[in-house]
């Protein structure tokens, strides 16, 4: 009947922690990067450049929101990148076959919805582990994209479509606007709707939630559908920006999205995580990429440096948590 060796107060009353302790460590990493790059290069600290950062990070943010929702259910979605690719392809093909821009966007998003439905079905009804179901979907979606494009890029030149990727609302780039809207919508859903609370329930205590009468299978299924839709949206924006659908463009995005989520403090267990943290995780990657460019680091060196910073960021996070400075 002992309190055990856990760090938490096993018989405490849930007192709130001091506000500065609740800031995730990755926020400090982002802050220090911004300061560093700001000092190192005058071009960094301009409005234009910040908008640039948001533009570069917007698709990643949408993907990372999708990844976060899935990870909150204690699942994982490895197919996000392939769905991004496939949706871009179907949207552009729809455009090429004469559909209007809105219709083409819908086709793209519906592609993601369809993929998400298949994955969701395999996981809930088929009882496959999410890693395997989404690994399979990743192969299938990427393969389909190759088939549909006959292995080459396909082009899209319609001004209405390109606006999604290259246009602006005032001075803010369209992708940033879309990504912000997605984030806000996701935040509201996660915190203020049944769906959001059930996502956390599935991740936190699926068996317990089911015994409390929650239809956990349904909500899990819907989570993957939403993730697929979001990845597809990202793919459509990507195709609009590139003015083309490239059959391998999305390769690896799922790992970036998952890494951004984890850097932001969402853990793989128990439904513990925040969308705000995910934004910070995305910022780490986006600020880093942009900063390295601005200070003139060659493209050759960037992957290595990015890896080092990611590891440093997570080491920082783990060390702070271990010392009990934050929880």
């Amino acid at each position, binding site marked *: *009947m002992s309190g055990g060796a856990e760090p938490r107060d096993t018989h405490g009353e849930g007192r*709130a922690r001091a506000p500065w302790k609740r800031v995730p460590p990755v926020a400090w990493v982002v802050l220090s990067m911004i300061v560093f790059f700001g000092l190192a290069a005058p071009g960094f600290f301009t409005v234009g450049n910040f908008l640039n950062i948001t533009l570069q990070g917007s698709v990643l943010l949408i993907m990372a929101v999708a990844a976060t929702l899935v990870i909150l259910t204690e699942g994982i979605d490895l197919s996000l990148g392939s769905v991004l690719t496939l949706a871009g392809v179907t949207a552009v093909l729809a455009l090429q076959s004469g559909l209007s821009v809105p219709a083409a966007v819908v086709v793209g998003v519906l592609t993601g919805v369809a993929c998400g439905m298949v994955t969701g079905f395999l996981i809930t009804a088929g009882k496959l582990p999410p890693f395997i179901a989404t690994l399979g979907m990743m192969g299938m979606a990427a393969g389909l994209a190759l088939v549909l494009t006959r292995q080459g890029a396909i082009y899209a030149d319609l001004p209405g479509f390109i606006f999604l990727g290259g246009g602006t609302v005032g001075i803010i780039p369209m992708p940033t606007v879309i990504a912000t809207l997605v984030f806000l919508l996701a935040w509201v859903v996660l915190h203020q709707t049944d769906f959001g609370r059930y996502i956390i329930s599935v991740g936190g205590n699926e068996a317990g939630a089911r015994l*409390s009468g929650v239809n956990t299978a349904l909500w899990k299924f819907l989570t993957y559908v939403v993730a697929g839709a979001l990845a597809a949206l990202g793919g459509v924006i990507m195709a609009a920006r590139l003015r083309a659908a490239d059959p391998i463009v999305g390769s690896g995005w799922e790992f970036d999205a998952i890494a951004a989520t984890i850097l932001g403090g969402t853990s793989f267990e128990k439904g513990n995580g925040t969308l705000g943290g995910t934004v910070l995780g995305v910022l780490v990657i986006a600020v880093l990429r942009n900063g390295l460019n601005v200070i003139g680091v060659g493209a050759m060196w960037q992957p290595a440096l990015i890896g080092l910073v990611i590891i440093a960021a997570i080491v920082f996070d783990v060390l702070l948590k271990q010392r009990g400075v934050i929880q």
Partner: protein
Amino acid sequence: MAEQPLLQAKKITKTFPGVLALDTVDFDLLPGEVHVLLGENGAGKSTLMKILAGAYQPDAGTIALNGQEMRIANPRQAQRLGLGIIYQEFNLVPYLSVAQNIFLGRFPHRWGLLDQAKMHAESRKLLDGLNMDIDTRAKVVRLGVAQQQMVEVAKALSVRSKILIMDEPTAALTDREIEQLFATIRRLKQQGIGIIYISHRLQEVHQIGERVTVLRDGKFIGTRQVNQVTIDELIAMMVGRTITHMFPRDYQSQGTEALRVEGLNSGTRLRGVSLKVHSGEIVGLAGLVGAGRTELARAVFGADPFESGQVSVFGQPVKAASPDRMVKLGMGLLPEDRKAHGLAMILSLSENVVLASLQRLFPRRFVDGGTEREVVAKYIADLRIATPSPRRLVQFLSGGTQQKVVLAKWLCTHSKIFIFDEPTRGIDVGAKAEIHGFMNELVQQGAAVLMISSDLPEILGMSDRIYVMRQGQIVAEVSREKATQERIVAYAMGQEVEK
């Protein structure tokens, strides 16, 4: 009392593949009563409970609620019918708030979104009614176990339950929290709520119950009025035989010093702890939950680092302790949570038994199947471990058998010093007595045993000497002759003790 029973279950039968879990069991519950349900592990208590909760369907038998025959088709319906269940492993979602947990599955809405204000207001009312000062906005994961349990009670009350089923409610509570729980239960009884109370703690039967029902091997053995039955009679009903030797001990003279702890400090959890254990003796370590006993055990074993102090094994101080060093020096720790820390559930019995002795049994690093089989067979026989095969995965064994596997693992290491942390918690009466017997044999053969236990009869019945811990310090050392329940509790709570 010729009242209408809240619940009347008759001739309930339930089979699973290969097992008859319940065999024509009868059970009824009157309003305002606490009806205790007793039985060993595997007796059928949780099956019966899950049937009432709507999680399982009975193969035969009837259930009547308030005189009306019903089918409880699923958990949601059970809720609607007024049955609230508080499982041992709570159904709480760690990262949702208290209010959201209370209303899980039944969130109130306003304009399509969650009505957080209403949830918090209603939860506040419920918790105030239970006399609990818990922040409804706090995430459940930050609450202590007792508080979490209260959230579960509030949840059951929020669906206007007339019947509460509680599964091992006191397993992880301090004595003070248990008192609070009992006070809450008494308040609920006054409101006419009936409570089915499942517990292994026989002393609680007389503390809180009106009636008690005993199941054994899925069969209904009998229902008694609590004031008309003794604990020994209950044990006999549960086990099917009388257990004469609950605490078999052959006391002998103290041997050489095997373990010495001096001035152990670790933050606020351990403050200047010193103790000694000799070969041939069982030293009990008593104290309230949170006193630091498990922390001490882990620090001594090298599982957790400590700031200052010294641990000596057979007179030799140990530097840079770690579990694998301590194992080599001849120490073994049977942890409090056997499933999480004592066993690898998805590995076989055999693999678990040899796990701590790999270096000793296989010095050339090659695992020899024949040796393993022989060794494991010996311990299966010595400890009377009930299993169809040594290759059976440990997760399929009963609680008592699992604890025997943990014990076998440490016996296999030929350790000379054993730390038992709650050795018989959650284990049925029959297996308890067996394990006590093994402990006695161990010290007869010269081992030194440090036993942490919150079961006062067990501490008093098995120990040569008893240390009492309070708030990270050793506050008393009591010899067997002078030890009584009252003295131990008094020391543990920091009260005055007459000499």
